Structures are given as C-alpha cells and as structure tokens.
C-alpha cells in the first residue's frame, strides 16, 4: 500500500481512529508521518485528562486505609469515586470535599481563585440584602451603646423583618 499523502513511498505507519462513531484509517510513509507532526504530536488532548493527571498526584491522605471514607451526605459521592470519574455528584460535594478539592481547583484553573464573572441576579440581591442587614446590625449595636433603646427596638424589628424575607426567598 502506498502512502496516502505523497502517494510515492510504501506506507509504514498505519493508524485507525474512531472519532464520533466514525472509523478512519491513516496510512503514511515514515517521512510523511514525521512531516505531518500533528499526527503524532497532536494526540487528542482533553482538559479532563489534565484534571485526571492532577488528581493522580494528590490525595494520598484520602486513600489511606485506616481513615474512614468520607461521603457526601446528599449524593453519596466519596472522594475516590470522584478521582476516578473527575465529576462530582452534587453541589454539596464542593463543601464536603473542600479540603481535598480546593488545591486541585487552584491547579487546574491556573492558580486562579475567586469568581469574578457573572453572578445570578438572585445572588446579587442576596448579597445586597446581607450587606444591608450587616449595616443595620452595626447601627443597632451603636444605638444600644448609646442607650437609645427606642431606636434600637425599631432597628431590631426591621432586621428581623429583612432576615425573615431573606429566609423565604433563599
């Protein structure tokens, strides 16, 4: 069989790939295979492979036999299972495995920490409400210190009202 690329030399490099349920065969001579550097160099790369390699280098503490296996109380995921799949079972996993996962997140996300992008609108409202409550609490303390009890009572009621609303929406 001749090389598919130069159609001159006999093909010595044979590859079969299955992509997207589609089988393709590549037959090249040594020279063309070397020239077409993407054939060998550009083996399919995925971000998940990267994650898997980071996971493989961490977590000796979690695989120790004498340590009880921690499971997510909401979805039942344990960290070994996560290491195999690279996927968490629910949002609560991020809390449960915080200690294990945060250093890994930092590595796969290029050292980045702290979300700076879009926030859900509900989240914005919640943050604003929290900020307002914090400010009111400070004013309440101040009022108590100055023995302005009438104002303190008003503030206390208002804070309770806000917290009640917050609890309903959250």
């Amino acid at each position, binding site marked *: 069989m001749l090389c598919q690329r130069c159609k001159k030399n006999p093909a010595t490099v044979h590859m079969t790939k299955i992509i997207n*349920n589609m089988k393709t065969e590549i037959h090249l001579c040594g020279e063309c295979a070397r020239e077409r550097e993407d054939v060998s160099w550009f083996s399919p790369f995925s971000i998940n492979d990267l994650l898997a390699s980071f996971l493989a280098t961490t977590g000796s503490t979690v695989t120790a036999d004498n340590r009880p296996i921690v499971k997510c109380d909401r979805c039942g995921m344990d960290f070994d299972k996560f290491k195999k799949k690279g996927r968490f079972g629910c949002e609560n996993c991020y809390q449960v495995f915080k200690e294990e996962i945060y250093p890994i997140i930092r590595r796969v996300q290029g050292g980045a920490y702290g979300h700076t992008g*879009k926030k859900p609108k509900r989240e914005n409202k919640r943050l604003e409400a929290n900020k307002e409550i914090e400010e009111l609490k400070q004013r309440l303390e101040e009022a108590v210190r100055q023995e302005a009890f009438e104002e303190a009572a008003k503030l206390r009621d208002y804070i309770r009202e806000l917290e009640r609303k917050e609890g309903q929406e959250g």
Partner: protein
Amino acid sequence: MSWINDIGPLGDVVLSSRIRLARNLADIPFPQAMDKIDRDSVIHGVYRSIAGSDSPIGEEFQFLSMKDLSHVDRQILVEKHLASPDLMKYHERSAILVNWQEECSIMINEEDHIRLQCILPGYQLKRGLDYLDNIDDIIEAQLPYAFDPNLGYLTSCPTNLGTGMRASIMLHLPILATTGQMKAMLQTLAKIGVTVRGLYGEGSEVMGDIYQISNQITLGASEEEIISNLEIVTKQIVQKEKQARQLALAGSRIHLEDEIWRAYGTMLHARCMDFNEFMELLSTLRLGVETGIMTKIDIKTINRLMIMGQPGHLRKYGDKTIGDLDIIRAEVISKLLRSTELEN
C-alpha cells in the same frame, strides 16, 4: 445567522465562534447522580422556563427528547454541532432545545443540568455571549442555579467552575499546518491558557486542517476578559495564516491552483471516498474559495459539503440501498457540487 449558511467576520479563516455556558440547578444532584424523577423535573423545568417566558425567544425554540429520536437523528444533531457527543451518549436522560435558525441550543442533562450553546459564523464571540446571557437570565428567573460566591457557577467537573464558559473559535489553517509552524504555535498557546482541539471539541483530533481554540481556564477571569484574550490570539493566528497564504501564492500560484482544481475534479468524479480523504480535499477546496482561486462554488457550499459528508447525514439523505458509506459519500458530494455549480 447559521454558521453553515452564512459568512461572518474574518470568514476567510474563521469558520465559526461558539460560546458554551454550563449551569446546574440548586438542590438537585448533578445528572450523573440523579434519579429519574429529578431528570424529568429538570427537563420540564428548563423547557417551561423557555417556552413559558414572556420573551419572544420562547417561540424560537423547538424541544426534542433525545430518547425519542432515532440514532441517525441524534447523530445529525451532533454533526451540526448543535448537540455534543455526550448528549448523544446519555440520550436516555437528555433533551435539547434548538432555535429555528440552528445557531443556539440548550442541552439538558448532559454532564451538567444545562449547557447553553450559541454558534455563529466567523468571529463573533461577543454577540454569542450576549445572546446566551439573555437566555441565561430567562432560565434563572424561574430556576435558581447552584452558585458559590468563590467558585462561581458550580459544575459537575471542576474544570468548568466559575463562569462555566467555554469560548471556542473554529479556524481553517491549511498553510500554517503544512509549513510546520503549527507545533511552535500550539505550544505557545498552551502557555497562555488557550487549548487547541479538533473539529468535535474535547478529545477530538484535527481533521481537514480545522483547529478549534478555546479558553482552558474558567475561574478567576470574567467572561469579557476570557473573550478578549481569545480575540487577541485569534487575530494573530488569522494574520499569520493570511501572510503564509500570500507567500504561498506568490511563490507557486500555479501549483496551488493545480492542487485546488484537482481537488475539485476528484470531488466531482470520485466514486468512493473515505472520510479522511474527503476532509483533506475539502480543506484544499475551502482554501481555494478563501483565496478566490475557486470560483465555481462558495463557502456556503463548502460548509454544506462538510455537514453532508458525515455519516449521519449520509445515512439520512443518501441512497438507502447502498451499504458502503464511502460510495454514498462520493455520490452525495458529486451531486451537491453539480447542483451548486449550475446555480452560479
């Protein structure tokens, strides 16, 4: 504007721009850990949030349950890049909403509950993001998302945390690929957090000189910052490819013309063509159209060929009495080329 039927900014090198946002609903396990009741409630919830919204966008979308589609119809969605291979893989639990222009899709119960995706022709990431931003708000108004102030949108895989956004540009780089400049460029890109992949994204290899570049990091930078980074990189690559094309044309125009017209001839007359050969010839033909050498067809025809030459489309629209896909492919390509040539 569909990326198949229209040509966009920097369209002589950039095929398409794609934005994908990953979202999960609060208090429901991620798809891989959820039960049937949760699966159905996520599908219904997302469908209702779109179909029942006050926005005119609601009327643009068609709902499809992946389970109810035939294997070929699922494959067609993947080949048009409206659905991901994973959505097809998990068809028992997944669904999709597609807008009639076929530029935006909402995948439900893929790896995450929701994957919003917009593909536009040429370079227009910002427009894609604006479009999805709006849909994101519409869904969020009905369904609270899983979100953490530090980690951003919580996703099944930590590589999508933060913005949940993957922005990708599909580039046609035939000359850079053959002049051996690719390797150095790919290594440089990796250093600045830009990954390069093939036609089908994650884990797929490069075919027909089509490269997909996208952001690797999703946490710590805003959506706009990520996009503007990619824009700088894209413009540089486009410039490099164009320079290389000019050099190639100046050096041996006749040989390039020869190659392009031979590709056209083979496509017109071949009786049997495997996918690999098809993609290589199509790359040459695309270069011909992009450089103005090939005048018998336009980019729209090239894109239609690229879609039609894939297995799902061949099975659906080709001669069903023939078993061998390579034979059907040659026939379908030749017919399409002849019919578009007559139109010119």
